[in-house]
């Protein structure tokens, strides 16, 4: 048995096999194939399997993201069936007597190069599709298909760290827990862990490739993982895990109850979601609405800027299926630690203080309008709120509102339906907190983004694990900022909520209630524990 330690994200236990999540290294030699016709048959079989995979992805995306997003996989399947591509690969195998791997490398590279050399940026970008398919086929040929990075059985995944786009793609039904070598308690890995209630160990430096496939217990209570645990340990921790499951069942009894304190004060508890795929979790955990829909995942999930129609479908799905409950969608918050190739953002010295969120949107007006039009159209289907992130001045809000109005007029002229909606801003900068009186005049609500607010107020990089000793999530400056914001908001008729991680911190629930907070938006898994906490508080004492 090996014991390795790290930093645990939440109290919980995962028991299962370890799976090392690592992109395969591909080495392809240019040697001559002994039996070219056998290689050609291998190629044909691999393409067939790749097409099958694309069709499976299509089905999966159809259910989770809709026809528009799924269509790309159908197109990929057709590309794989392309005669020109397949003939050129077989020509290399049979004519030059090469292996299937070598021929796929050459043949697909040539096709990608053809697209790359076209003069239109759209067609140039299609070379990425070809390279994607090349990797798929190579993975199959070399027996290292990327889907198997996660494996086909439920497992505890071990990785260097998970990128935001990777956390989206993981098959959550096969995910028992996560262990990363890097990461901080505010990284995307940690956020995913909390939103899914997944036992997760970060900063685990002792990770070894030899763990792959071994039985393990991830003990979130004690910040450690046991590889190849003893029978006694398996029994003891297995029992503890069952108790956790029972406790979870008790929480389910709170469904349908109000978030009311003993002395009768009721607030709203909403959920934070990353996309339409989380709607199920909102319902399962009986949240009264969505306080933060992170729209950037709509952007991170695609290879090119999502169209108005694609965005509209995603927003409409959430707004319509949760109606009459409110859904607050945050406009694009790309930049800082969330970057995307097609946005062509420059590398920055200080990305967190750089070109991100509303700053990109106000600069690239057409890009912003695509999202605002999609949002306005979705508003016809339920109870929508729109909020702008990273606001530091009234001028920005006025500008954003003017663009929103422009979109509204356009859509009305086109005869499109628009519903009623609330407009708000994220309070995630100190500048916004200090100007909250003026900002309150412009909007219907404030939502405190405490993760960024803490980072900017304390000058603590939330991604830097080394700063954890200096970090204080209950820093008085942050708590005072929250108090100021709530008071200013109420002076100007705004409701004020908290959508950062702090909202789910049960040790602060009473403090927030006393400050007068109107809404707390937390990850879906935290909704019921928070309800339980609220119902146990007596503000009259």
């Amino acid at each position: 048995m090996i014991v390795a330690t790290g930093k645990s994200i939440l109290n919980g236990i995962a028991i299962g096999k370890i799976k090392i999540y690592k992109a395969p290294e591909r080495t392809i030699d240019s040697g001559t194939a002994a039996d070219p016709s056998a290689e050609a048959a291998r190629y044909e079989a691999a393409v067939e399997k790749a097409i099958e995979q694309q069709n499976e992805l299509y089905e999966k995306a159809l259910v989770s993201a809709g026809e528009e997003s799924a269509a790309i996989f159908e197109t990929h399947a057709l590309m794989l069936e392309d005669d020109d591509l397949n003939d050129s690969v077989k020509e290399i195998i049979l004519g030059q007597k090469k292996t299937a791997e070598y021929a796929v490398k050459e043949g697909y590279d040539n096709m990608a190069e053809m697209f790359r050399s076209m003069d239109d940026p759209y067609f140039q970008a299609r070379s990425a599709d070809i390279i994607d398919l090349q990797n798929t086929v190579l993975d199959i040929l070399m027996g290292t298909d990327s889907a198997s990075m996660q494996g086909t059985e439920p497992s505890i995944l071990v990785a260097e760290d998970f990128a935001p786009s990777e956390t989206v793609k993981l098959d959550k039904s096969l995910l028992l827990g996560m262990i990363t070598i890097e990461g901080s308690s505010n990284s995307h890995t940690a956020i995913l862990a909390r939103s899914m209630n997944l036992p997760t160990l970060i900063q685990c430096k002792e990770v070894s490739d030899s763990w792959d496939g071994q039985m393990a217990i991830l003990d979130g209570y004690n910040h450690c993982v046991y590889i190849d645990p003893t029978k006694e340990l398996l029994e003891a921790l297995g029992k503890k895990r069952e108790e956790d499951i029972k406790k979870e069942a008790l929480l389910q009894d709170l469904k349908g109850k109000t978030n009311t304190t003993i002395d009768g004060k009721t607030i709203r508890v909403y959920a934070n979601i990353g996309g339409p795929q989380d709607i199920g979790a909102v319902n399962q955990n009986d949240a009264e609405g969505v306080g933060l829909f992170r729209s950037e995942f709509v952007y991170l999930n695609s290879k090119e800027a999502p169209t108005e129609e694609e965005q509209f479908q995603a927003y409409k799905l959430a707004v319509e299926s949760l109606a009459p409950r409110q859904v607050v969608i945050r406009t694009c918050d790309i930049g800082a630690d969330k970057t995307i190739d097609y946005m062509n953002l420059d590398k920055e010295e200080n990305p967190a203080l750089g070109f991100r969120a509303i700053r990109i949107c106000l600069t690239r007006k057409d890009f912003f309008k695509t999202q605002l039009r999609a949002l306005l159209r979705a508003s016809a289907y339920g109870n929508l709120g729109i909020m702008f992130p990273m606001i530091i001045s009234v001028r920005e809000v006025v500008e954003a509102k003017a663009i929103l109005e422009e979109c509204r007029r356009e859509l009305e002229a086109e005869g499109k339906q628009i519903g009623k909606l609330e407009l708000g801003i994220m309070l995630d900068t100190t500048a916004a907190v200090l100007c909250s009186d003026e900002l309150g005049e412009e909007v219907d609500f404030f939502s405190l983004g405490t993760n960024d607010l803490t980072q900017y107020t304390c000058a603590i990089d939330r991604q830097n694990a080394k700063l954890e000793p200096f970090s204080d999530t209950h820093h008085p400056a942050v708590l005072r900022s929250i108090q100021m914001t709530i008071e200013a908001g109420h002076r100007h008729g705004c409701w004020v909520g908290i959508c950062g991680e702090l909202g789910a911190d049960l040790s602060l629930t009473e403090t927030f209630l006393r400050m007068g907070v109107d809404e707390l938006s937390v990850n879906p898994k935290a909704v019921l524990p928070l309800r339980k906490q609220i119902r146990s508080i007596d503000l009259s004492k």
Partner: protein
Amino acid sequence: MKEFKYTITDPVGIHARPAGILVKEVKKYASAFTIISPEGKEANLTKLLAVMGLGIKQGQEVTIRIEGEDEEAAAEAIEKFFKENF
């Protein structure tokens, strides 16, 4: 043989998604389909990558030639497809 001309109005031109659906449509017919770019470059309409390789953009006029036993019905259906999708 049937032939029709069509000017692309889609802002992205003949792009991957509709082109993929087009290829599937075309394969339903027995006829041979050829698409000809304004520069006179030809591609077989059943070959997705070759069609995309023509790089047809908004505002360009393409010629579609259809030859085979079901060319009447095929021409009508594919012309309709172009009007609806490009």
